[in-house]
């Protein structure tokens, strides 16, 4: 089904861009139209082709260019992985990068059956590198998270 949904989403995106273009001046509009119109046409054709293949011929999902790692993995494994990524983003969004990142690394390692010593060692190593290189050396201002901005007025 992904092979049908993907071009469909891209098609919707192109149509929205086309609609959004209608008020622009000639110079601002010309080149986007030169690209958007054929892109929409190609996506329409691709979506039609995939719809025919998925809905009428009921062909199995294409799996192209999977590489070595994870080859043959089930859809459930992919969903779990995407869930992990979502947890990572949410943790950082709520608690900030400095806190969210080590929590994620520790959680991920521990829940994937790594021992405590290795999990703690890797987490400390990652945090150490992050703090040393990015905060101390590059002096980057780090996002402190939504909760910090609510409770301590920091951002």
């Amino acid at each position, binding site marked *: 089904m*992904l*092979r049908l949904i*993907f071009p469909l989403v*891209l098609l919707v995106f192109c149509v929205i*861009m086309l609609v*959004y*273009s209608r008020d*622009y*001046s000639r*110079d*601002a509009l*010309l*080149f*986007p139209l*030169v*690209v*958007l119109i*054929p*892109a929409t046409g*190609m996506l329409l*054709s*691709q979506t039609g082709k995939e719809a025919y293949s998925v809905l009428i011929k009921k062909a199995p999902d*294409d799996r*192209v*260019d*999977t*590489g*070595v*790692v*994870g*080859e043959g*993995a089930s859809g459930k*494994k*992919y969903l779990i*992985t*995407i869930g*992990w*990524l979502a947890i*990572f*983003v949410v943790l*950082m*969004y709520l608690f900030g*990068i400095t806190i969210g*990142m080590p929590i*994620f*690394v520790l959680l*991920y*390692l521990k829940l*994937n059956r*790594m021992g405590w010593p*290795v999990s703690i060692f*890797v987490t400390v190593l*990652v945090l150490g590198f*992050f703090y040393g290189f*990015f905060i101390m050396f*590059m002096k*980057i*201002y*780090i*996002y402190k998270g939504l909760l910090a901005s609510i409770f301590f007025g920091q951002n």
Partner: protein
Amino acid sequence: MLEAFVRALGNIAQLDVMLVMLLGVTIGLIFGIVPGIGGMAGIAIFMSFIWGQDPILGLTFILAIAAASSQGGSVTTILLNVPGDTTNAATLLDGYPMAAKGQAGRAMGIVLTASGLGGLFGGLVLLGMLPVMRPVVLAFGSPETFMMVVLGLTFMAIIARESLIKGFVAGCLGLILAFIGLQNVTGIVRYDFFNWLYLEDGIQLIPLSLGIFAIPEVIEMMVGGETFIQKAGITIRKGGDVLEGVKDVFRHFFLFIRCCFIGTVVGIIPGIGAHTATFMAYGHAKQTSKHPEEFGQGSVEGVIAPESASNAKEGGSLLTTLGFGIPGSSAMALLLGAFLVVGVQPGPKMLVEYLDLSIWLGWTIIIGNLLSSFVLLLLARQMVRIIFLDARILAPVILVFVVIGAYAINQNFMDVIMAFVFGGFGFAAKRLGYPRVPVMLGFVLGKLAETYFLVSIKTTGPFFVFTKPICLIIFIVILITLAFDQRSKMREKRKLA
């Protein structure tokens, strides 16, 4: 011009530059060795590290990663029978049989010499061609430059072997993403979706590149779990004399030169891909060999040919990247992005406005390849053990690098979220056979293409493609390319049927 070559060589031989290059080479080798990640993800992840740095050092670092990554894959091919990526597939045919015969050291000697000297060959061709290319580039105005961008996108689109439409869709998407934000020509903000402030500056390059090249690889790694390759049943082959392998390359020196030439020419033609160069060289070696029956059984010539072509190709690829702004390979498409990160506008004016930098990059290709061979000569057997590292450890660590990379430049958390959004896109594109490189290329060249397009329309009229001779030639080349691509696909289909 000669003075500029010597000056660049003098500057490159400084301690800080060499250290940066060594770091880039080491990272490139590691990413090349770990299967399923590859040099592209390495470049994407470390691109944010060069922001705010000296452009020369930054680009040296990125190019060193690109130069070393393919050599890393060759090592695992020979020692473990595991190709790093498709580029190394031709080396597998004779490299591992050599190792299995107890000549792993000899095969390594061949790989290190052929690829190191192959890089030298490609780099020298690049440096030799720069003065010749310059007047050609100077003859190009806006219409010709615009057509070169279209040609580049066409070449990249045909990378999608499965479907040309998918390739073009990917290229168009890159261009469309580049439209978001402030337009250079009119100064108005476009496609900011209900005045969303974040989009006023446009989509950011680093989150996009991390999303489409690094996150899909991390997802695959996380799904794979545990080790990349099961350790059981795989032995790191030993035996053989490395020096003997070095001598082998010189014993077959004319084969080496011919294969370097094949690699460089294939590299100059964008969109063909490194695996084509290596298999062409392998086929040539077999055809011209006195002992074709030994191919596939551990033939020395069968290892020299793909390795010399593979690294000579990078010099050729860089030539079209610098000369016309058309990347000759996927890594070069990302290099164009790295130009933007350090504030250098990529495109056909590179040889005019940044000649010294172009020469510097030529030397970087040469020294990066030689350095990479040297590092592998010393540490190949130790480095190859990375493959047995637990993916459960490596995946979150790389993910942290991705997040920091996305965040560091603008220090805006929205960039991190966007990296993951593009990661979802990249992952779906990868699984469904939509090539990701044209997206990057379209995005990097999008604003430039639009400016040239509008200037061409204003100065030459809407039919500039047909009124300018060079434009017409490029247009015909595009048509011929597409026709050949379709013909080869039809042949493949017929063969399969």
